[in-house]
């Protein structure tokens, strides 16, 4: 590539294409620049993750649609139908669970896929160099696709209720939608932040992946996803809000359906927690990525 930019013998050896390999990784700024240079790989690894998931299946791409919809149908049936949990503000329970589940599933599948990402792509990591952080980030594409499909179903359901009951349940103001987007951003960042800790750990100890599965199931129950916050006595709300995902899910529900309360103090705390975890995650990931590759 740079065959032509030969310098005369004896010229100073400070050429633009100089590189250095040292035990300690490079500085933060040059790493960020490097991620930018390799930005195409985000698309590549994202696509690859999705294609890989549905490879060798008879239904193929259909699974992309089936997978997110099934759990929702089951949850709506059990909680709304059998247990008849009441949803606040007169919103149909299906819409309520749809909204809560879509953001929670986005978070949990972002986290579980990024946790597995280094292990799944180990063939690549052992053979070619690129900034490793791209892998856990790009693998979250699977979760985004699921989320988009759930949003599609949500819109269809909104239209259905508009036609049958004449009521539009969507809180269609810019402020609401803005909060919904902010909640999504925090959920994804939080998943990434935790994923940066778990993916190198999982490369070494596969126990992480299994443990995480149970942690996420339990975490989902602690988060007001399938029940409204009002189902919890007021004096225990502070306990619910210790969980940073609770505020995020609440903000998303408020943003899309205008139901329940938007607690900005809680949300701001969640953002702060997320940023701290993210910073520690980046620090951890970059300091162990080399060893993690040796041990996969």
């Amino acid at each position, binding site marked *: 590539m740079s*065959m032509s930019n030969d310098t005369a*013998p004896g010229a100073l*050896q400070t050429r633009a*294409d*100089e590189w250095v390999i040292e*035990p300690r990784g490079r500085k933060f700024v040059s790493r960020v620049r490097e991620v930018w240079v390799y930005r195409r790989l985000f698309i*590549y690894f994202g696509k690859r993750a999705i294609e*890989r998931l549905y490879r060798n299946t008879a239904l193929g791409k259909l699974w992309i649609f089936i997978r997110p919809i099934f759990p929702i149908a089951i949850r709506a049936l059990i909680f709304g139908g059998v247990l008849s949990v009441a949803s606040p503000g007169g919103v149909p329970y299906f819409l309520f669970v749809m909204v809560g589940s879509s953001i929670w599933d986005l978070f949990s599948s972002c986290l579980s896929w990024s946790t597995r990402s280094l292990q799944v792509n180990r063939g690549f990591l052992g*053979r070619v*160099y690129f900034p490793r952080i791209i892998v856990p980030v790009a693998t979250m594409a699977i979760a985004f696709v699921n989320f988009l499909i759930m949003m599609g179903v949500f819109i269809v359901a909104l239209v259905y209720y508009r036609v049958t009951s004449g009521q539009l349940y969507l809180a269609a103001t810019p402020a609401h939608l803005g909060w919904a987007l902010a909640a999504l951003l925090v959920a994804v960042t939080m998943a990434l932040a935790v994923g940066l800790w778990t993916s190198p750990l999982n490369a070494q100890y596969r126990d992480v992946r299994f443990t995480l599965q149970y942690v996420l199931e339990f975490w989902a129950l602690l988060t007001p996803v399938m029940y409204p916050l009002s189902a919890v006595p007021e004096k225990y709300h502070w306990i619910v809000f210790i969980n940073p995902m609770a505020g995020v899910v609440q903000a998303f529900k408020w943003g899309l359906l205008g139901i329940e309360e938007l607690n900005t103090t809680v949300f701001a705390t969640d953002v702060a927690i997320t940023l701290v975890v993210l910073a520690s995650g980046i620090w951890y990931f970059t300091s162990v990525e080399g060893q993690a590759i040796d041990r996969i």
Partner: protein
Amino acid sequence: MDSISVTGLGKCYRTNKAPSPWQQLMARLGRKGEESSRRPRELWALKDVSFSVKRGTILGVIGPNGAGKTTLLKILARVTPPTEGRIVGYGSVAPLLELGAGLQPDMTARENIAMYMTWHGVSRGEIDRRLDEVVAFAEIDQFLDTPLKRFSSGMYVRLAFSMAVNMQPDVLLADEILAVGDLAFQERCLQRVQEAGAAGMTVFFVSHDMAAIQRLCDRVILLNAGQLVMDGTAEDVVSHYEQAAWTVSSTAGKGGRKGNHVSEHGRIVSVRLLSGDGREIGAVRHDEDVQISATFTVLTPGATARAVITLNARGVIAFRTAQPDEVTAVEPGVFRANVRIPSHLLADTIYIVKVGILLTIDGAQSTLSMDNALVFRVYADHEDRHKSLLTLYHGSSWSGVVMPRLDWQVTREHDVVIAPV
């Protein structure tokens, strides 16, 4: 001008698995005695290696197995970070490690080429033009839309090599590219590397093929046990290497070995290469006898054992051989199976030995196996009569997976009869 300079490079692997946090916790909760025994053992794959390479040099890297050749290339490719030391280099680096450099078996050749070029920043219009060059050199035109998983290993390495060279990197890292692939392609590979070197590309050429090293390399470094032992002209270093009796032991439990060499009935302890008179060696001459010796334990009394070895070379099975009579372990014990391979049978190439121990316990079969149990090189120098005859006839120094000297009878049958037209 220096293309790459390496100073004090070292790479340490932990051979024992580091204790898991759980084990650390248990150790701390009282059982202090176990803590020290669980401490990971360190293995320096490279230690204190320093050298620098000028632009356009084809640098041969040789050494016995486990010398650190591949580790050096992996560090240069940034696949694994060094533990100490520093490398300064210039320009783009194209690695060809473990035959493939990140090729995707599920994608077609065309998709792989496009992906590889995209990775390396080639523009879309440029890709189409270069695709033809890559395909022509790799000779895979009919298979362009075939997924790589259906490729032969030869086609695979041809494609990988062709792509890497086509990028015209400043530095090419070639690890055993000649181990697979047909002779004609190997020849073109060598020519291509030679041209690239002349055009200013720096090439790191790791090979066990001394003939290729001598033909190609301007300079050769010899590694042994992670250290740079010798640095000089191809002729000097190769002859030093060939004369030295390398004693490389290969003990079970080292990383990278596949197979199930341990079970409740026994384990394969070690597999070694011995000379005809029983010295442990790392390489052997074509005209000398060689023995492969597998040590294994049998734990179940009354089990019968039978050893089988498979020799692979150039990506195919060269031959397999099994111990004709089984032995019965009346008492548990350590056994040693030795097989002698006569001189003038093996070809001058690299062999990969797979060892299997078939155990029969009360009529039930159980297998211990160790893939890549041993890798060794057979060399035939220019004075080897058999080899030079073959070279004379075939016009190439490449041989097959075996090069047996057989019993030939040539007699005069009768006078020439000129048949009427």
